[in-house]
């Protein structure tokens, strides 16, 4: 009689979820973003399920045919690859950034610039610093946010 080895499938799907939920969900909340403990927790559960499922698949009874051992092995390998991909993306790739020694330091004047806004209008930093930010009150300051871009 063939039994469906659900633990291995659940472990595989859970590892997939553990990976994807970081960029798609947990990165939105600082508490789950700064250290991905929620995702690592899902990976731990997935690994436990996987070990349990593999033990069943490779048990020396006849309930699980060779096919179950092969699919178990493949799914276990894929799940480990997903975990490896997660560790690389979150702990290594995310830190592959050039150091910035020449950035303006605290106390220095920020270099002025003129760039186009989303309507194509040219805007200068000095203009941003001197245009009212709210109810005709002049800005106390400007927060410059440099980001990688959408594409």
């Amino acid at each position, binding site marked *: 009689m063939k039994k469906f080895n659900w633990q291995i499938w659940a472990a595989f799907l859970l590892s997939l979820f553990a990976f994807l939920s*970081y960029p798609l969900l947990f*990165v*939105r909340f*600082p508490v789950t*973003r*700064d250290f991905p403990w929620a995702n690592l927790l899902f990976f731990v559960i997935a690994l436990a399920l996987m070990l349990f499922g593999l033990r069943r698949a490779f048990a020396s009874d006849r309930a699980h045919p060779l096919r179950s051992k092969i699919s178990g092995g493949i799914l276990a390998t894929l799940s480990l690859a997903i975990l490896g991909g997660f560790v690389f993306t*979150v702990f290594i*790739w*995310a*830190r592959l*950034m*050039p150091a*910035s*020694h*020449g*950035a*303006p*330091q*605290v*106390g*220095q*004047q*920020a*270099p*002025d*610039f003129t*760039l*186009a*806004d*989303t*309507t*194509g209008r040219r*805007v200068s*930093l*000095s203009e*941003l*610093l*001197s*245009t009212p*930010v*709210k109810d005709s*009150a*002049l*800005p*106390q*300051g*400007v*927060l*410059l*946010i*440099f*980001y*990688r*871009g*959408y*594409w």
Partner: protein
Amino acid sequence: MRSIERSLDKFHEAGIRPVAISVDTPAESLNLSKQAGYSFTILSDPNTEVIKRYDLLHAGAGIKGNDVARPAEFLLDSKGTVRWINLTENYWVRARPEQILEAAKLLK
């Protein structure tokens, strides 16, 4: 930037104008601000002119192998003097609005 938008009222109350800068064209930035509902100013630096002047170039790191800006935040006072910096070392981890608003108290 999502968290900045969510705290935009608080930033405006503190007199802080958030301004985002990337290599995206104005049309791409417009697309992003429409999709994500951003109402703060977004500027385009497709030639990485300003990004280089601020030493924030991450060469070849774009999706098409193009040059982009490494993430960074600068808080300037009304005279344009840098009062606070965050040069993150982790792409996923950016300054939290509370951190920036705390730093904004220095400006008063």
